[in-house]
């Protein structure tokens, strides 16, 4: 198990290196001139060609791409992500301020998606084929097909503007998290609800479910005790994939609800061609994606001994 973990961690590290090299190349190839932006920040309308050339030289922007990547990588490993071209603050300071916001949003959204999907999926499975099952199917379908900006606007109009119960933006106590978390959880929760429902349906047709009924269990008991543990692997892997994708949702949701997290910082970095900020956030995203997937793989192996044996073989 330990060797397997080390091998997986090594592969994850290689993947991160490849992904950061790719994003570095893409960000560098994007239109725009970092030196011009820095010059403009320092001198406003006084930025001229000579000043831009001097800054480019000082920053080594004329060096070959591999040299620049290795230099950037070295700085990043020491925790130096550079200084944001937009805000003028070190990226590490920006991250320290913003990561807790995004982490809370993802954690809240993840928890909601977990409960929502299990609740909806189980309820649908217990009312198999009946009216409630069809209604729940419809709810999940709508949730999985509605864009989050629309959901956000709808929730704000009803709960903030109409009822005045919840703040429409910013962070003013725990109620501020309700609407953003619901918005970000709706899509993955709905997808996961379908995963639960469909897999439970299949599991209920398996011999162990029949055995459960033969033992005198009712449908609910068979679902929870026999079928549910058997859908753990597809659920965990899908949950991992959906959870990583929630970071994409966070980019939109943070802006809509005025939350100053990593997503909002990323959007502004793109708008202002803050290449340093963009590269740092993309690196963070890469680390997040790879780490979550590694964690999900490990959890799946811990949960299912068959996977451990298969990997060993």
């Amino acid at each position, binding site marked *: 198990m330990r060797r397997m973990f080390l091998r997986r961690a090594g592969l994850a590290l290689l993947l991160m290196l490849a992904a950061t090299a790719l994003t570095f190349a893409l960000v560098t190839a*994007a*239109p*725009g*001139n970092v030196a*011009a932006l820095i*010059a*403009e*920040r*320092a*001198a*406003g*309308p*006084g*930025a*001229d*060609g000579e000043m*831009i050339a001097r800054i480019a030289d000082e920053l080594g922007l004329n060096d070959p791409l591999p040299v620049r990547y290795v230099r950037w990588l070295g700085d990043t490993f020491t925790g130096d992500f550079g200084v944001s071209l*937009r*805000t*003028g603050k070190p990226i590490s300071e*920006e991250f320290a*301020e*913003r990561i807790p916001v995004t982490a809370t949003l993802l954690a809240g959204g993840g928890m909601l998606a977990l409960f929502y999907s299990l609740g909806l999926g189980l309820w649908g499975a217990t009312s198999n084929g009946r009216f409630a099952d069809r209604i729940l199917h419809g709810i999940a379908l709508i949730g999985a097909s509605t864009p989050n900006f629309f959901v956000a*606007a709808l929730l*704000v*109009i009803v709960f*903030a*503007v109409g*009822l*005045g*119960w*919840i*703040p*429409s*933006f*910013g*962070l*003013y*106590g*725990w*109620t501020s998290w309700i609407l953003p978390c619901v918005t970000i959880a709706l899509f993955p929760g709905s997808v996961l609800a379908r995963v639960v429902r469909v897999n439970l349906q299949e599991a209920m047709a398996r011999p162990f479910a029949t055995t459960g009924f033969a033992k005198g269990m009712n449908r609910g008991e068979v679902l929870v005790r026999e079928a549910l543990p058997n859908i753990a692997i597809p659920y965990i892997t899908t949950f991992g994939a959906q959870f990583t994708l929630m970071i994409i949702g966070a980019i939109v949701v943070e*802006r*809509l*609800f*005025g939350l*100053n997290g990593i997503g*909002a*910082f990323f*959007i*502004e970095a793109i*708008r202002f*061609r803050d290449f340093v900020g963009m590269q740092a956030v993309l690196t963070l995203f890469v680390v997040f994606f790879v780490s979550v997937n590694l964690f999900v793989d490990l959890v799946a192996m811990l949960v299912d001994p068959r996977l451990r044996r298969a990997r060993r073989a």
Partner: protein
Amino acid sequence: MPKLSRRQVMASSAAFSFLSTLPHIALAGGHGDTLRVAIAGETGDLDLLQNVSTLSSYTVVFDGLIHYGPGGVLEPGLATAWTIAEDGKSIAFDLREGVTFSDGAPFDAETAKWNLERWMGVGDFSWIGIADAYESIETSGPNQITVRLSRPVPAALLELTIVRPVRFLSPNAVDADGKQASPVGTGPWIVESYSSSETVLTRNDNYWGERPSFSRIELKVVPDELARANALRAGELDVIGGDWVAPLSPRRAKALEGEGMTIVAEPGTATTILGYSPKSPMMQNRGVREAVFLGIDRAAIAQVLFEGFADPSVDIFPTTVPTAGVRHAVPARDVAAAQAALSAAGWSGGGSGWTKGGDALEIDFLVSEESFPGSRRIAEMIQAMLTEVGFKVDISSVDNATMHERRPNFEYDLTFFATYGAPYDPHGSLGASFVSTVDTGPDGKIYISDELDPVVLAALEASGDAQEAAMQGVYDWLYDAVAACPLLVTQRIWAVHPRVQGFSLPATDYDIPYKGLTLG
């Protein structure tokens, strides 16, 4: 009658208790004495020498020697009077007595000199005429300074009203390297705190001018326009709007007006201009420029795309800017006249479109929605209008960075520009956008030519009574040569919650409105 189990009763009670607390939670932290203003991006540290922080927040914290009043009238700020020498090479300022910075440090001739020397004569600020021509500053007593210049700078007083770096910082608010450590000024508001979410300002009770009627301003960072509008509707914000504060689109303003919010719209100070590339062979043809000029229905654009919150114009500057010149009548769209201009220039129409010497009448229209929000829709409307005239218009829709690369290299036939607006104009835009020898980096030029350069330079150097005539000379030259195609002046739009009374717009779009307001 349905029976309820004990568990159901407990759950219902818990849910009811939870819901009943929500309104109190949402409205917690009362706002009676606080003005809540939306800002699209965080204010930053308000460093006066760095081009990073949001422009709109400086003016409430820092004062300059001179304030920019409505219509460009120069009003006393930290200077109560000023005298320009006959040769234009020195300006003497009488400083306001008894003024202190919000940290208690006195404002006097020495602190004024120290502040001005931080940017005057410094290369990074050579784009400001008075900084470029700076020679020395002399103090005469505790409340008088004289700035000596190597040459006359006619726009010197106007330059002292711009947002930064001309305002005054407490000498105690710098670190050992002389870098600004905290934003401490003499203005009506003091920065209590700032973060990426909000900046909190408290009233400066020792302010030398009129004291605001409320004690606190919260500048809330809300990047999304719809979120700002919803927060205003929900009563979580009091004021939204302003191009440099938290832009409000005309369509959204109309919607808010119908929902009981007060909409305040006044003529703007910046003109949206269609620039013809001076390097494009096609646009060097006067007939083509005339056809574009006459083929556009400015009134329709103002009405349809701006919901009436824009004023059609064919002048470089609106009347809200000083020495904006004599007005020219906005022509009605005239397709026949546009086609006649093309014919007179040697173009001939036919079944396969207009041609001249085998060249098709095809123009490249460079547009960046990112650098000029709303421009894509304007471009599409203009495309339809010019197609009727006989043009084939190709819209190149690019991102901000590409726009900033292509525009200075004149890689377009047509593209959008906007003048800087108050307090920078007319000198700011004329110097940056119409003089070929001034390097303005990524902003590009509206129009440049060897013939135009001396006309503009003469206007920029003219002072006193000669200035107005010299400026008019530039406007007439541009108009007669059809060198640019002004379209409209967008209005300054703000939306205000009913609890705010006495709202009026400040002189420029770089100011946050607070003067004369009372909160209900």
